[in-house]
């Protein structure tokens, strides 16, 4: 039916744009609904949450947020989380950068096996490692410190960082390295002054992923901490008091855990698409 397909072909673009917008709108609404509900609850008093069912807070209150920001037991949770997440990101990138360079530029004995072995650590279920980690870090006196959580999260973040950076580095032509060496640069100077700026977006993406997976992980960070380095996600369970759960407070704490992630996304928004493909597009 050549004429049947030819006629709608002219109209097709406009219809498709509308349908696409519709699909996207439906999907985004699906994503936003639970978040809207959380925000809605965080702005209500506990009495209103348990009383009437309302789509918007009748008595708008910021009391839940005030509670969190004035109680050190609450806000230190955010500080603890941010400390170990940043430490983890820095450590992961520092060791992953040279390794990724080696994997992207050279053949060496056992390179393929080593690369897959690294990836297997990304596949290791944290549940398997929870107890051994607890014993390991207790025995070296690091239990309940930020560095313990940061090192534990290296388990899955270092392999991921190597994987991402290797993808980005492969895209940089090797002639650049050779030219730099001819120009008299040593390896260190070349790497920091020339190579790193070239893969800046890759480093940003890798940092984003390290931040993300360290920020969202709970099982290991909860197992390795009790008081001093306890992450916010574990503190949230405190809302279960004697008189039942304080839903408003729980919701407010939840909303506040979303904010650092949202900020980070905003900074890397132009690289998100390529970043999620791990540099392999």
């Amino acid at each position: 039916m050549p004429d049947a397909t030819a006629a709608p072909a002219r109209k097709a673009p406009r219809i498709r744009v509308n349908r696409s917008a519709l699909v996207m709108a439906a999907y985004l609404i699906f994503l936003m609904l639970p978040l809207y509900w959380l925000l809605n609850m965080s702005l209500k008093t506990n009495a209103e949450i348990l009383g009437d069912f309302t789509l918007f807070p009748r008595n708008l209150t910021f009391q839940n947020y005030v509670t969190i920001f004035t109680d050190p037991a609450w806000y230190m949770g955010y500080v603890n989380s941010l400390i170990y997440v940043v430490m983890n990101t820095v450590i992961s990138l520092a060791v992953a950068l040279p390794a990724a360079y080696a994997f992207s530029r050279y053949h060496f004995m056992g390179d393929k096996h080593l690369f897959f072995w690294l990836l297997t650590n990304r596949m290791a279920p944290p549940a398997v490692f929870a107890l051994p980690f607890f014993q390991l870090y207790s025995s070296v006196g690091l239990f309940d410190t930020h560095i313990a959580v940061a090192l534990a999260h290296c388990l899955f973040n270092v392999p991921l960082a190597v994987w991402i950076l290797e993808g980005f580095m492969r895209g940089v032509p090797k002639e650049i390295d050779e030219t730099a060496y001819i120009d008299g640069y040593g390896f260190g100077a070349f790497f920091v002054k020339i190579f790193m700026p070239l893969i800046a977006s890759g480093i940003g993406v890798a940092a984003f992923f390290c931040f993300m997976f360290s920020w969202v992980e709970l099982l290991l960070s909860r197992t390795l901490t009790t008081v001093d380095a306890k992450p916010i996600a574990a503190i949230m369970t405190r809302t279960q008091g004697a008189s039942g759960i304080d839903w408003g407070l729980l919701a407010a704490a939840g909303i506040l855990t979303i904010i650092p992630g949202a900020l980070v996304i905003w900074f890397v928004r132009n690289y998100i698409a390529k970043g999620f493909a791990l540099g392999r597009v």
Partner: protein
Amino acid sequence: MNKTLNNKAWFLVLPVLVLVAFSAVIPLMTVVNYSVQDTFGNNQFFWAGLEWFEEMLHEDRMWNALRRQLIFSAVILAIEVPLGVFVALNMPKSGAWSSFCLVTMSLPLLIPWNVVGTIWQIFGRVDIGLLGHTLAAMGIDYNYTQDTIAAWVTIIVMDVWHWTSLVALLAFAGLKSIPDAYYQAARIDQASRWKVFRYIELPKMAGVLMIAILLRFMDSFMIYTEPFVVTGGGPGNATTLLSIDLVKMALGQFDLGPAAAFSLMYFLVILAISWVFYTVMTNLDKKGM
């Protein structure tokens, strides 16, 4: 890229090797250690050989958890991959609206996993949750703490909510790399929408889709926090996935021997399946995508 042979490159890899050895090999050896020993307390251990492995293999508990886990991973892959591709095809290619979509879609990915669980726990409650309340108002009997089907639907919808964006973003990255000339050629050939998808878009996305499937498979197979917060593995054991069962055994009942044997077999299953995906992926990489 043709790489040069240089064994000195090992020095560049050394820091990673030391770090990962500390945070992976030592703990893993602890697990191996436990799996072949038995204890009567007081830190006295004695050799038990492969007893724990035999015991676990004959126990229904692990097989049931494994079956639930396989069903869970298969279902979420079957939903998330096609849905993610579909969303990616409908995403605007450029402009402010595109950035807006990207940022909004990434949001669920950066929420701590227990908060994701909490969000859905609240959202699905009949008394205070929007979803539960609406379903109840429509006369649908929905209670995820009592009803097996409702519990399963809840954790699956939660996972779809949480992770479909990852697949969509990956597929979108693949789509964006297709030069316009391909589409022009297809238009000249009067290719149908389906044929454009099948012969242009899908092959170009294959590489990144493999990454998506690999990541989603690995992560769904080790999922712990989200379903644990929502259902706690219940009702009964209906949503006790592998990790939930393992943590119950190791940290709850402190059955170190069986838990360690369980851990190793669990890890091996993931390893075996991931190796298949990885091989397919590297082969696609070699073909130059």
